[in-house]
């Protein structure tokens, strides 16, 4: 299917276009959660990259399925394990932001190791899978989320906002 030049350019396999630093810079955590966010990301990276556990994580990553699915579900599993191991003291609002950064970190590590090539598009798909997996584990319906998001029309919202607050 023919696509536009801009869309083609956006979806090109450019592993260096999206870095974990860019994701972290765009994440705006409130001050009261910033400390917990940093700790969760650090703990997640310890689980994924430490000498004791990285081979196991890599082994999980080599299972069947697309790289985006394995990456997204893998990071979701790491986050939920962290929540469980923290005796439910991990603030729920930190789960998704920390997981988003961990997905970027894991993709960057895989590219640097060279074991598998993770494209920018794969990172985006992995983040989407991560969000849907985590929300599903908390009782949300991913189908309804996708349905609501797909039917989102920004023009109606902008018009309504202008009517409410001129």
């Amino acid at each position: 299917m023919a696509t536009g030049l801009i869309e083609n350019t956006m979806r090109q396999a450019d592993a260096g276009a999206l870095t974990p630093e860019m994701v972290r810079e765009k994440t705006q955590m409130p001050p009261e959660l910033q400390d917990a966010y940093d700790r969760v990301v650090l703990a997640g990276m310890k689980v994924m990259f430490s000498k004791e556990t990285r081979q196991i994580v890599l082994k999980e990553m080599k299972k069947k399925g697309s790289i985006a699915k394995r990456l997204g579900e893998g990071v979701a599993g790491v986050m939920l394990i962290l929540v469980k191991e923290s005796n439910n003291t991990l603030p729920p609002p930190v789960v998704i932001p920390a997981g988003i950064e961990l997905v970027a970190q894991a993709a960057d590590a895989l590219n640097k190791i060279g074991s598998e090539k993770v494209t920018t598009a794969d990172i985006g798909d992995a983040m989407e899978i991560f969000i849907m997996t985590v929300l599903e584990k908390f009782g949300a319906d991913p189908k309804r989320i996708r349905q609501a998001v797909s039917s989102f029309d920004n023009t109606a919202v902008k018009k309504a906002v202008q009517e409410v607050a001129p």
Partner: protein
Amino acid sequence: MHPKIYLTRAQTRALAIDYPIGDPTGGPAYREMKAPVAAVATMVAASSSAIAAGSLAAMTVFQGIAFVGGALSLVGSLTGNKTLSKIGMVAGIAGGVGALAESAFNVSAGTLGDVFGATGEAAGAAASSTAAPLAASQAPGTLTPVVDGVQTFAIPEPSAITSFPLDSAGGVASTSLAAESASLAAPSINAPAATSLSGTSSVNAPATPLASESLASAPLSSGATNATSATGGASGASGATNAADSSLWGSIKDAGSGVMEFVKKNPEAAKMLSGMGEGAANWLSGKTDAELAAMQSQIGFNDVRAMQIQEQIENEKRRRANLNSGYTQVDQTVRVNPNANIQAPWNTPQPAPQQYTPPPVPQQEIPRQQIPGLIQAAMVPRPA
């Protein structure tokens, strides 16, 4: 010289019903600013008894999406992922994440879902059946520790992740991963001070035992299955729900509810609605009696959301009545008449608002000997 009026203890206690004396954070002068999503989460928990504690935890998880809206928009634009781009856009709208969360959990009418067009019938279909899986394993109201000022709740077992299968007890099934994660995660996460996630050692020892053990007996998959089967069984409601979702955003300007019309006529009310429960009392205290009456006639009693606003207005009117009577007689009840027949005000000409006339200030000084105050009683000379 201004006359000094001493209040009795009964009058002080009566006044404290509305504004606690000595509380620096109480009263109309104090405003607590909260993000719309937090207000939505608080409002949903207070308004609907059908939502279990697990659902509130899940909606708190949704709050995290609001923090990464910019990052998701960036990733969506770089990767061409439209879902991430739209989620990022939703996160950038005040109350957008709350509405998305309501759609995801099929929360019933009476919340921002009404404002965004989800009808009561479709949005309320099988609301209780989609309660979080935790509802089966955790009693409502179970105390959980507060971490960094955020109330935490029981988290579901990560048992259904294919990459990290867990055993029935909730531990990681893979022995090597279990051993390594237990040895690695325990000292780094649960250790106090520097390496603990909470940052305070006291939080790691919750005051009440959590239901983590009971969570293992109610695996996540069963709860999800129940939710799915309940949703699938009600095919008519499911179809109506899908239709409501498709028009969730498109019908925002045509919601037609009394609340939306009220918001259009009162732009400031959008701020009140976003901070419902927290800023509503402060906002209403600055309105005249005529403005309160006009608001009541505009809102009507169409839905639960309108009823909530009516209750807030009635509470303000009750407070003013108590204040005007000098708190000699305190009315603690709030009466909202849902059967009131109120015409749609946007189709009829509005009457001119009445001028508010403050009550006359008493000119006569109250004789001191008629005030039954504690100090006065103490100043009575003792008999020789």
